């Protein structure tokens, strides 16, 4: 019956159409069908944030959204954020501050952090910690990630 769904969407500025299994989640569609492997898959129940992508301007868990639900949506992945320059300053700050080790959490962390920065967030360490509380990092201990986010906000001000 409707175990397959036709979808049309925009991904990183390009039109995409596909027929997908109804049970396929968005992050698997991006990784396996479109070969956009920058978004990672960790817990698959919304807790770790590794799969975070931007849907119609908002950060969203790619593991908790069906590809079928993304019909007519405009999606930006970490590849898109890097290509259009949106994440340049933050990526440079992450490198400067050693804000990644294995890098598994980094694409989701960048997407979440950009939501904070672009939303007018200030260089308030507590507020930043609260904002990224939905993104797990098992390497850095978060200090350096908060440092990097503060750097970008402070640099933009000067």
């Amino acid at each position: 019956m409707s175990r397959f769904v036709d979808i049309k969407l925009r991904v990183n500025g390009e039109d995409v159409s596909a027929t997908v299994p109804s049970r396929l989640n968005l992050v698997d569609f991006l990784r396996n069908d479109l070969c956009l492997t920058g978004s990672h898959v960790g817990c698959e129940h919304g807790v770790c944030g590794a799969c975070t992508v931007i849907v119609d301007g908002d950060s969203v868990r790619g593991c908790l959204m069906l590809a079928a639900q993304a019909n007519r949506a405009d999606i930006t992945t970490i590849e898109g954020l890097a290509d259009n320059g949106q994440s340049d300053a933050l990526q440079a700050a992450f490198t400067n501050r050693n804000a990644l080790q294995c890098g598994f959490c980094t694409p989701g962390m960048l997407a979440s952090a950009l939501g904070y920065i672009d939303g007018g967030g200030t260089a308030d360490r507590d507020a930043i910690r609260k904002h990224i509380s939905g993104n797990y990092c098992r390497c850095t201990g978060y200090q350096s990630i908060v440092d990097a986010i503060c750097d970008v906000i402070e640099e933009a001000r000067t």
Partner: protein
Amino acid sequence: MKAPDFDYLRPANLDAALAMLAEHDGNAVPLAGGQSLMPMMNFRVAAPEVLIDLADVAELRGITRNGDHVRIGAMTRYVQLSKDPIILADVPLIGMALPHIAHDAIRNRGTIGGSLALADPAAEMPALMLALDAAIEVVGANGTRLIKADNFFLSYFETVLEKDELITAVVIPTASNTQSFGFCELTQRHGDYALAGVAVSRTDAKYRIAFFGVADRAVRVAALEDTVGDDLEKALAHLDEIEFTDDGKANAATRQRLAGVALTRALEEMTS
């Protein structure tokens, strides 16, 4: 894990959605923001045969003020509530609670209707509806029902909602000048579900106080509400009436203590 297979349906309006629910006779489940249903399916604790995506049902959207109450469509997302001028002005308690619900990425998808239908005992929204004396509007084959929040939640993940019914909206009395609100939630980490939390609304000297995260559902304690204005110490003794949850996160005695702490802090920081 990945979700088991299911049929995906996307009705264009409310009538079509209700017809699909009725047709599949208990085997179809509505999909709102998916922020609880998808994890449950990925864990395989839920395996519906049919998912009915409510995304295109325009009747379930929108926030309106009609005289002395505010109506919030079931498919309104947390993020929309947090930016809506009507909510911020007329239902300030929702604005106070929202930052404590999960994280940005979850609030960008999760809906008020989904949270109420789910009835997680640790969720904020059911307690807010109790404190605000809200009513939940429900539509099914037998027409529309308006159910007081006090009568809506039964137990863990259980409400009076029938399988062929949908929540369409919640109806909340607008805040009056004489009303003030308090909210406090205690968690292990920001955004986690509450170990104990409380939502308070005071009209003149009358209190409505709803605890969450402490028992099988959000709860009010009449004797506590009646005494809290005069004697907090005495009021807290009435917490004994709650059958506190005892689980791996916190035992019943700890939860009872935390409920008292949450209430004390909420009362200290009431809006004026």
